[in-house]
């Protein structure tokens, strides 16, 4: 295999060995996957959203399988930033791939606070999660209003020396406007998409399948939606995009790169195969060699 075939230049000063990353909340911090094999070959690890204070998350059941997908209502369960930095971040850093740290909050102050706190933790970049559908009653205040997005991204920009991606939601008709707002407020890149609002109904018991009522839909079922929003935002904004939603194979990766993503993240597919991301890297290399293609050919900001 040709060395460097998959090299992906993501941001000025940030080049990854390949464009296949783990998706936040779907691979914890990489340590569990590493028990099955070597995860060094992942392009980067994206950690589960961490918030200023610990969050217990939502009551069970939190999962419901659907046709070619699943609903979750985890509710950003996490140990809080202090415990995360002390106990989990060092273990994530030991695994090898660069770490992109995902941060979240419920207010401007919380986003600012957590961003400030993680500046020197060893992450190469941040991902700012504005789009978890399982908190704040699914309102998504920062991901559905361009003005609110601009304000929170501006606050994060002021305190962040690290480059950051802003993770957006598909649950609005204003995705392109919200993306423009994030760009004008100083985001270095965008991540698309977080999960779609969804609901399962147990009609016999007259109640929703998830304890919270609604949840977020992920998996192969949402791939066309994710591809659509990547292409839409690509046309609206000149920032690197991390594409995510239903990716499970090297073919999927190529589709996202052609749609306009610079790199991709693997989420739900990691539940089926703990080494899915690593397997995709290997497959992608073979696929590109076999087809005489290259990453630069598929994805280029100048396209």
């Amino acid at each position, binding site marked *: 295999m040709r060395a460097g075939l998959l090299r992906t230049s993501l941001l000025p000063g940030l080049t990854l060995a390949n464009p296949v990353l783990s998706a936040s*909340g*779907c*691979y*914890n911090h990489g340590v*569990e*996957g590493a*028990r*099955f*094999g070597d995860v060094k070959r992942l392009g980067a690890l994206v950690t*589960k959203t961490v918030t200023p204070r*610990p969050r*217990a*998350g939502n*009551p*069970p*059941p*939190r*999962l419901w*399988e659907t046709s*070619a*997908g*699943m609903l*979750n209502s*985890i509710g950003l*369960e996490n*140990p809080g930033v202090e*415990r995360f930095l002390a106990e989990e971040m060092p273990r994530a850093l030991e695994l090898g791939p660069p770490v992109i740290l995902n941060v979240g909050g419920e207010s401007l102050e919380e986003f600012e606070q957590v961003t400030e706190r993680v500046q020197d933790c060893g992450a190469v970049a941040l991902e700012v999660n504005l789009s978890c559908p399982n908190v704040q009653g699914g309102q998504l205040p920062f991901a559905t209003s361009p003005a609110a997005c601009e304000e929170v991204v501006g606050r994060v920009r002021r305190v962040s020396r690290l480059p950051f991606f802003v993770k957006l939601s598909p649950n609005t008709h204003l995705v392109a406007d919200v993306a423009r707002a994030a760009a004008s407020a100083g985001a270095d890149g965008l991540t698309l998409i977080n999960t779609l609002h969804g609901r399962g109904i147990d009609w016999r018991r007259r109640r929703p399948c998830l304890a919270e009522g609604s949840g977020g839909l992920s*998996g*192969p079922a949402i791939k066309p939606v994710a591809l659509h929003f990547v292409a839409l935002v690509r046309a609206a904004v000149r920032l690197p995009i991390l594409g995510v939603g239903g990716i499970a194979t090297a073919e999927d990766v190529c589709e996202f790169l052609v749609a306009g993503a610079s790199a991709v993240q693997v989420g*739900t597919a*990691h*539940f*089926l*195969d*703990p*080494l899915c991301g690593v397997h995709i890297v290997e497959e992608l290399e073979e696929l590109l060699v076999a087809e005489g293609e290259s990453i630069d050919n598929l994805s280029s900001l100048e396209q």
Partner: protein
Amino acid sequence: MQTRLHKVLRVEGLTGASYVLWLEGPFSAEIAPGQFAMLRTGSDWPVLLPRPFSYFDVSAAGTAASFFGKAIGPGTRALAAVRVGDEVSVSGPLGGGFPAPADGEPEPVCIAGGVGLAPFLLWTKQRATTVLYGGANREAIVAMESFPGQTTFHVATDDGSLGFHGNVLELYRSLVAAGEVDQRAPVYCCGPDPMMEAVAADCAERGVACRVSLETYMACGYGVCNGCSVAVEPAERFGGKPWARCCIHGPVFDAAELKW
């Protein structure tokens, strides 16, 4: 831990939609009773997520392993329908098993309901054990012949078609009353939730230790999705949270840790 495809060696169909699925190794030879794996068929898997199964049997040196299942939905039906030579994807071993009793503690008595029998074969291969096994009817009482001769079985069926007429908790109480089961013996239990809850409540009342293996719905099985939470008394072992992850902290819990 490993994740790989295994060739199907044999599928033994049993009554009551149950089956034993034998897969070719390599498997870890160190699998503890109560540990589980995430399974899906290598092709034509009808659903998205893999399904958790307790290891039933593991042959010496891990050259083969079996899983004891009951076809109740699309995933368990697809696994029942595989043929010799097909492949099944197995990720495991996952979770923690039933602990060996402390020195001087009486031998645990195992209480199983339906496919909840699965984790106890490996246990009985290590120690002579009394197993109380309950099911709806005679058809549901299967796979006992797989157990080593040193196992003492007591069977209960809801309809009385085999063994004791009643549920497995009633059987347990009657055996304790008759002095056939040590009343101080810790109870290891696996079966449907309502059964485990009733057994745990009975043990709590009498001050007897009880460990249960939960069959919580799971997505990943290895600790990354945070979807398999079960309500617990907050403890440091659970990061001080009111939930534990069944796949990592369990599936075997001390019943006193759980909020039913």
